[in-house]
């Protein structure tokens, strides 16, 4: 029954894709066009003609507004190797992808079937796709990833959770050159969604014919040794990881074949890191023009985000959102828009709130633990917060005060959790605290049951100014109900060390996972050590009870529900199960949300077209990738 649902769902998507294909497939006279720079190479005999490079039935992308013209250089900026995330978001080609409204769409896998109650996934690849060096992309490349990368203990000590929640290798079978079947031991309810996330590109960035020479199993020992010596690397595993690391492999080498719209020609981290069009890119527009429209994507190295902002204002950036976010920069971008150097496209953060309070349930001091574990205390905190003040000061009144609940745009939205306990009501807060026995002394400050003064420290990362501002407002709000509160603003790594060892009272962090609740559940229950409300319970969950601390029953219950979601294929059933988790959160309020931030902006040059009208901002949804950057185009200025 469940399998049926999955197939039907997939079939619907495929037929949607076919509708846009249908437009020209019947037209026999149709021929494909290519960019002038490639046509020149074809003429010189350096490149096969376009119809030999494209699949017989290329994937058709319907332009966002209108078909574009070839040419142009898309100028962006980056701050170094750690910032290649920005480039990764431009070249987004997993097997299945997110649609601009955050649903699953076919990509390199043109259709799929789910069977055996969600245990088996049969993926059909688009036929005739080639790597950027002209070699065919086949099932072999994916099998190479599973058999020779994942299954190799030297390269991968254990299977990542996103592949299979229980960390077990699926059985991988080649059905034919373009069909692959993955069979998991347990139903894998989130597998397709995981494939659409950035890490899903692991499967599509492993050109076997190229990476073979770095792999012990395939390379001739003397050749491998020569490469190791030449690159000055001590072991083949290091070498292989370097050459295939998803974080940068597409951008640091000119040789690395790729399936993406642009391939690296001047590798990062140079002052100008350049990617040029992939002559073998396998998508065309509705007129049969091979994509991408834009010739090259250039990232200029900048030492600091501030200079990137200046470049944007001066019109030296054609489309970029990274390093241009945050209220402070948005304000200047809006103010300087009049010069006509750019327009702004809003993107909504998928985080449920810009910042939330995570009271530490794993506090080492038993007395504090008892207080922080008391739902009344957390509810009192929530009522003590003047969210309107935060909204006014930090977001100019454009944010939305709410709890760390799923967003309105998401399928898991709950109006009651969103608005729970967010009224600013000092009296109610004080009553709750009095009820807990945290009585006010003569100096107006509250004391714990054991007579010690009640002191709280708010841990926050100093990297972002408005986080510290919000923390300070929270601290003064709590001071007003008699809780002596101090803000501790730390560097990012110090902050992390403190919170991961559960040394904090209350930590402040954005509420990621307001849209992609199932993929990023850390604020709905202690999912991992990133769940700052209870990092040790999170560890317990991640390690299957081997490390960390055993959580109380009501939290274990949530973990069980989530485990059930993982093996559920039906969307409807997943939603019902998740609603239970939300209901529990509404009752216990493990984390206290503040305000959802107003949208950030992409800076878009006036001559840049086909960009989305609005977008999401998230990690799992690598914007602007889902908006098909290959069909962006630039007109002459």
């Amino acid at each position: 029954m469940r399998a049926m649902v999955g197939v039907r769902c997939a079939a619907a998507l495929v037929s949607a894709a076919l509708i846009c294909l249908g437009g020209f497939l019947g037209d026999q006279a149709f021929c494909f066009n290519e960019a002038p720079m490639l046509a020149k190479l074809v003429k010189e005999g350096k490149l096969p003609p376009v119809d030999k490079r494209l699949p017989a039935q290329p994937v058709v992308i319907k332009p966002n507004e209108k078909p574009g013209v070839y040419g142009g250089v898309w100028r962006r900026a980056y701050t170094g190797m750690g910032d290649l995330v920005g480039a990764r978001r431009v070249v987004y080609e997993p097997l299945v992808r997110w649609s601009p409204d955050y649903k699953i769409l076919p990509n390199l896998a043109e259709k799929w079937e789910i069977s055996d109650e969600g245990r088996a996934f049969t993926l059909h690849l688009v036929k005739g796709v080639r790597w950027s060096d002209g070699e065919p992309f086949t099932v072999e490349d994916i099998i190479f990833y599973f058999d020779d990368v994942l299954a190799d203990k030297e390269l991968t000590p254990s299977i990542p959770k996103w592949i299979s929640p229980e960390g077990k290798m699926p059985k991988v079978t080649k059905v034919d050159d373009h069909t692959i079947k993955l069979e998991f031991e347990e139903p894998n309810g989130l597998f397709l969604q995981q494939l659409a996330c950035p890490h899903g590109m692991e499967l599509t960035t492993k050109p076997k014919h190229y990476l073979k020479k770095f792999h012990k199993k395939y390379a001739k020992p003397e050749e491998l040794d020569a490469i190791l010596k030449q690159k000055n690397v001590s072991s083949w595993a290091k070498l292989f990881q370097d050459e295939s690391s998803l974080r940068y492999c597409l951008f640091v080498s000119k040789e690395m074949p790729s399936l993406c719209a642009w391939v690296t020609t001047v590798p990062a981290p140079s002052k100008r890191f350049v990617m040029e069009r992939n002559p073998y890119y396998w998508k065309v527009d509705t007129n049969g023009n091979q994509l991408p429209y834009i010739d090259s994507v250039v990232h200029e190295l900048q030492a600091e985000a501030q200079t990137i902002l200046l470049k944007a204002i001066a019109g030296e950036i054609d489309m970029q959102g990274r390093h241009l976010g945050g209220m402070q920069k948005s304000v200047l971008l809006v103010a300087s828009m009049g010069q006509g150097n750019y327009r702004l496209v809003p993107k909504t953060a998928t985080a449920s709130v810009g910042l939330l309070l995570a009271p530490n349930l794993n506090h080492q001091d038993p007395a504090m633990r008892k207080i922080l574990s008391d739902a009344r205390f957390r509810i009192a905190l929530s009522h003590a917060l003047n969210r309107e003040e935060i909204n006014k000061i930090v977001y100019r009144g454009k944010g939305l005060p709410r709890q760390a609940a799923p967003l309105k745009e998401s399928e898991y939205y709950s109006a009651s959790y969103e608005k729970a306990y967010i009224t600013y009501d000092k009296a109610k807060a004080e009553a709750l605290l009095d009820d807990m026995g945290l009585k006010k002394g003569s100096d107006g400050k509250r004391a714990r049951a054991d007579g010690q003064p009640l002191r709280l420290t708010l841990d926050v990362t100093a990297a972002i100014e408005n986080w510290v501002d919000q923390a300070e407002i929270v601290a003064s709000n709590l001071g007003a109900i008699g809780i002596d509160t101090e803000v501790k603003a730390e560097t990012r790594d110090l902050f992390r060390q403190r919170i991961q060892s559960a040394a904090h009272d209350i930590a402040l962090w954005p509420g990621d996972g307001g849209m992609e609740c199932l993929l990023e559940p850390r604020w709905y229950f202690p999912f991992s050590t990133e769940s700052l409300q209870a990092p040790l319970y999170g560890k317990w969950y991640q390690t299957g009870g081997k490390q960390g601390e055993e959580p109380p029953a009501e939290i274990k219950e949530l973990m069980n529900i989530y485990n059930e979601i993982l093996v559920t294929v039906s969307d409807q059933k997943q939603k019902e199960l998740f609603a239970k988790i939300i209901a529990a959160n509404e009752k216990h309020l493990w984390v206290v949300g503040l305000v959802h931030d107003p949208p950030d902006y992409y800076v878009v040059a006036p001559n840049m077209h086909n960009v989305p009208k609005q977008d999401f901002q998230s990690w799992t949804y690598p914007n602007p990738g889902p908006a098909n950057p290959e069909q962006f185009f630039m007109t002459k200025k």
Partner: protein
Amino acid sequence: MLTYIIRRIFIMIPTLIAISVISFIIIELPPGDFLTAYTAELSMSGEAIDQVELESLKKRFGLDEPLYMRYLLWAWNFLHGDFGHSFEWNKPVRDLIGERLAMSVTISTCTLLFTWLVSVPIGIYSAVRQYSWVDHFLTFIGFIGLATPNFLFALVLLWVSYAYLGMNVGGLFSPEYSEAPWDLAKVLDLLKHLWIPVVIVGTAHTAKFIRIIRGNLLDELKKPYVTTARAKGLPETRLILKYPVRVAINPLVSTIGWTLPELISGIAITAVVLNLPTTGPLLLRALMSQDMQLAGTFIMFLSALTVLGTLISDILLAWVDPRIRYEAREVK
């Protein structure tokens, strides 16, 4: 003279070794290592790194070794011309620092020249016309440069040139030249951008030089030979420029040594704001992310430069002033 130089070079070696040890310890001092910094950065963009990957990275970077082993390994390789591997940039350190170091030295040298060009005339003038209003004014201007924090000066300049002049003053090259091979056009392009950091950093140091020249010249002017020369009817300009000024400028030579590290530090901060391809921004990043071998190598090179600068200025001084040579022997 030769023995003096050899002796000085001999002293340099323990200094450099001490610096290398200290720099390693300093980089290691903050809690955590490169990976904690790295994970923290990833988490800021919403990406989580799992424990398994962390362990394998740790092994890959050799961070599971104890500190002294890492130091010895690095030092040993360093002596053999292998400066190690940058974790963050995933590149050999050698590839990263070469051109940047050259840029840093270029900017520092230009800045030093600029500083001298500005401060010598001002220093002379304000000594000759001590306590005149022009003296006060020039000194005041000199000190304003010293008193304004470089980074703020740079940022304001950057904004003003963007907003009001429509000019991009960041970086050292226009985009079309940044990856181009070196030729005359590129050098000219460099010069067009170079003046901004030179002025910003240079103004921070002119005051010091003005003070030195002014003080020395004041001393010289009081000496009997000046009075004698004046009594003999030597024209004032010639009188001053010929002898006292030359004596007063001499000590500037000795400032090369200690000015270099100050300039490089000053440029580091300015370079971050102005996005200059110098050692500064990279060094700061390397320090913040505890990119051990990159930061260590940088510090070694910068310190070596300083030590070398000191050596050169000492040699120059000894050459200019025989008394110092004599003193050096005597102290021994």
